[in-house]
């Protein structure tokens, strides 16, 4: 009888902890993530994922709802917070890359804890910091990744008398 094991994740965790502890004498604690993912359906195909450290989600949710939150009893509330933030961020990204007069459609957000699900090959990741905690936004799909290298019109040169000539 065999069972499935995430050998890769276990190896990465062990390698990081052992390396940092031995090389720079620092203790490392693996960070558990709560993530939300939205599929981009039209006019491009792709996905946008937002991943937050678990503790940051607890803090944001507690502040937002003005209540003490508990990791066991408020799991649905944490997921809802991440889903809404992901939905909003993905919608804003699309509103800035799709021409104003064109329609775009995004899926309902899916949320999860731990390993993030990647589906579409290459991925662009951007990191942010909020109150000392890091979070990341991941963009998948060649249609969306193409926006990293788009030709945009050059801004017009300054008028000849810009320097007071």
């Amino acid at each position, binding site marked *: 009888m065999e069972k499935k094991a995430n050998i890769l994740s276990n190896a990465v965790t062990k390698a990081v902890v052992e390396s940092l502890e031995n090389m720079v004498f620092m203790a490392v604690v693996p960070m558990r993530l709560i993530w939300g993912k939205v599929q981009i359906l039209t006019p491009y195909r792709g996905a946008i994922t937002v991943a937050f450290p678990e503790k940051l989600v607890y803090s944001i949710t507690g502040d*937002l709802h003005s209540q003490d939150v508990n990791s066991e009893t408020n799991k649905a509330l944490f997921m809802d917070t991440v889903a*809404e933030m992901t*939905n909003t961020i993905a*919608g*804003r990204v699309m509103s800035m890359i799709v021409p104003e*007069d064109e*329609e775009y*459609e995004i899926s*309902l957000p899916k949320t999860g804890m731990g390993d993030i699900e990647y589906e579409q090959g290459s991925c662009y990741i951007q990191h942010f910091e909020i109150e000392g905690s890091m979070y990341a936004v991941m963009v998948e799909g060649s249609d969306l990744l193409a926006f990293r290298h788009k030709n945009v019109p050059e801004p017009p040169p300054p008028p000849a008398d810009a320097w007071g000539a």
Partner: protein
Amino acid sequence: MNRILVADDSGTARMFTRRCLEVLGYKEVEVVEVANGVDALSELNRQPFDLLITDITMPLMDGMELVKTVAGEAQFKELKMIVVSSAGNPAREHELAEYGVQIIAKPISPAKLSKALQANQQTDGWGG
């Protein structure tokens, strides 16, 4: 304004809206929250509201169907409506505008909500 109905399947989004209303000074207003269009219609039929703030994407009955249903009933003629959405759909936005509905792109903020409320005050509800 005395009573506001907020329809969104996300409790977090409803809380964002409630916070924005508080920042704008609507602290004495009664805010009722529902999670879908069916419950919103049920609340609207149960008691009078001055304003409906609804999401577009909701289970059971989405915001578009809710707006169309409300606009089709004379008893809601004075009700003002604001739609909050993260999807971009110019055709749908045009259709909503014909009902006199104000549209806010997520994330909702006090400034955006204030602007939509001011624009709403210049109409007499969807019939105005």
